[in-house]
């Protein structure tokens, strides 16, 4: 039996425990251990993904107890794919973070890295676990470390973090409540086992209640409109490196949990036809796309603009999940991957600008294009991808979502996706115009240049990654994602 599924979270957990000890001796050890831990976790995830693609899914029974009594960790195409995305983004952002963290919060380097690793461990745990209650524990591990991470920051950060804590606890509690209903209905907590027992209980109102509680909880965690209220403040006031770590992956992992519930626990047929959960998610997603885009246009703070843009992009993912057809779900999964790269790149750029100039008002970026050419080149690629211009990756996920919308015959969704691309063009071109064509008093940016290599390199990797993903998208879709969405093709139930 392969140990890969458990090795990924264990590596991250272990480094989270080692960092405070080693950091006590010497502060620089914290960064070294975090990078090595994240690298190993990524290597394990990548190996897991390759093994899953060649040999099928890997199941690991924790402590040797066979499910449904024991907890099992599962790497299948979906979870291996997500684990690879999360650990890769985590690794790149951690490499970037060293100089940025030393610059912004020099006294809190050691706790910040310990918490970052704990956050990654929690997120990866959510991905690999095959047990409903274990998912709750990892959800809370990741949330608790996120609250603490976000509170490191400027004066407003603790208030934003506390609000998020209250909403996050509501989400966690709703999730447990939903799991409670499922457990008392089916007598099991193992996802595969619950899935087998559920079809007989589809008429039960307790199961319907469970589905509703779980979906509200995960909607809150992934910041699906109108449950996104916590997100903009939190992204704006946290340290740049923390936002760059949390923004691209944390909401995506909740979206993953939603997909897991849709595909593995409840059958798509139940949530689509018997209880209108998926169409509610799709409509909320569409509303979120428009709301997020319009709010993003209204912002003058670059970080806040990116945060609202996240609300809009999460809307895309919600829309794709809600369509609950193969094309829509491929679009959602591809968008999880693409958006993780794009958003990480954009927040790294925001961090670099703050590192060099201390500014975040878009209007003060005039002329930065000449001073930070490489950073701004990466920004341009990511921005074009957000707008959806081929061959950048963002185009392809929107393309699949469009096809999914057409397949469903819902022209409102199709129009929403097209319209919001235009809106994204408005708010990104406004920044690009300032950066490249804006006139500035030359004295302001006298000593400004691209950030040091340890920050510039990850930014460029992500920027180039956006293009590479765009070119490789057909391989990713045909090799990985079509495996994932296969259950949607055959009607079950």
């Amino acid at each position, binding site marked *: 039996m392969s140990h890969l599924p458990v090795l990924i979270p264990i590596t991250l957990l272990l480094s989270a425990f080692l960092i405070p000890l080693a950091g006590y001796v010497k502060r620089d050890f914290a960064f070294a251990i975090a990078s090595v831990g994240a690298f190993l976790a990524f290597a394990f995830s990548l190996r897991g993904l390759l093994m899953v693609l060649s040999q099928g899914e890997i199941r690991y029974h924790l402590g040797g107890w066979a499910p449904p009594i024991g907890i099992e960790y599962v790497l299948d195409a979906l979870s291996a794919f997500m684990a690879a995305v999360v650990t890769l983004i985590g690794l790149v952002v951690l490499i970037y973070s060293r100089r940025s963290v030393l610059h912004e919060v020099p006294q809190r380097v050691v706790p910040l890295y310990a918490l970052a690793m704990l956050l990654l461990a929690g997120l990866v745990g959510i991905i690999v676990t095959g047990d409903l*209650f274990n998912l*709750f*524990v990892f959800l*809370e591990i990741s949330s*608790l470390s996120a*609250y*603490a991470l976000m*509170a490191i920051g400027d*004066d*407003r950060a*603790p*208030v934003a*973090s*506390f609000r998020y*804590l*209250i909403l996050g*606890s*509501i989400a*966690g*509690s709703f999730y*447990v*409540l939903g799991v*409670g209903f499922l*457990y*008392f209905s089916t007598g099991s907590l193992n996802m595969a086992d619950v899935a087998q027992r559920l079809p007989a209980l589809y008429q039960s109102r307790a199961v319907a209640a469970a589905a509703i509680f779980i979906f509200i909880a995960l909607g809150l965690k992934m910041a699906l409109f109108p449950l996104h209220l916590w997100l903009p403040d939190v992204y704006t006031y946290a340290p740049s490196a923390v936002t760059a770590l949390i923004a691209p992956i944390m909401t995506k992992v909740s979206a993953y949990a939603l997909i897991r519930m849709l595909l593995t626990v409840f059958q798509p047929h139940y949530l689509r036809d018997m209880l209108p959960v998926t169409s509610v998610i799709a409509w909320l997603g569409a509303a979120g796309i428009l709301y997020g885009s319009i709010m993003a246009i209204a912002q003058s703070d670059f970080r806040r603009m990116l945060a609202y843009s996240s609300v809009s992009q999460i809307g895309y993912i919600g829309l794709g999940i809600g369509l609950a057809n193969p094309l829509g779900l491929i679009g959602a999964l591809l968008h999880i991957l693409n958006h993780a790269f794009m958003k990480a790149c954009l927040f790294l750029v925001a961090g670099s600008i703050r590192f060099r100039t201390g500014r975040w008002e878009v209007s003060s970026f005039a002329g930065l294009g000449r001073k930070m050419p490489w950073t701004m080149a990466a920004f341009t690629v990511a921005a074009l991808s957000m707008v959806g211009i081929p061959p950048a990756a963002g185009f392809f996920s929107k393309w699949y979502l469009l096809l999914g919308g057409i397949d469903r015959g819902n022209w409102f969704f199709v129009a929403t996706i097209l319209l919001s691309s235009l809106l994204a063009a408005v708010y990104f071109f406004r920044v690009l115009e300032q950066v490249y064509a804006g006139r500035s008093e030359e004295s302001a940016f006298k000593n400004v240049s691209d950030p040091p290599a340890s920050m510039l390199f990850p930014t460029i990797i992500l920027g180039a990654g956006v293009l590479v993903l765009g070119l490789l998208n057909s391989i990713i879709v045909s090799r990985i994602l079509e495996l994932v969405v296969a259950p949607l093709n055959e009607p079950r139930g």
Partner: protein
Amino acid sequence: MSALAGNYTYYITAFLLAIGLYGMIGKKNLLKKLIGMNIFQTAIFLFFIHGAVKPGTTVPVLDSRIGMDAAAYINPLPHVLILTAIVVSVATTGVALALLITIYRRYGSLEETTILERMKQSS
């Protein structure tokens, strides 16, 4: 009436959930929000513990007079789950209190309206 008597814990659970939700959303004081959160979580603990109850059974410790008959013991799993959930709840409360101390040191108040005013003044 018998339906009420048999299910009264569910009504209490729903009542506590409502109180907790009101505390978290309706109250303006951050500490009261936290108390609301604790009430909310306690309601869920109660829900799980009630689910484990089986009338006429005993504690889940192997008894030589009863033997291996699983139906004669209370289901211990919800208790274990809730033990975990209580630990999570304690940790969340701890983090929340730490945040509240930081907020109080910076703004000198835990009233949301006062904090928002002072934020505006400082910016």
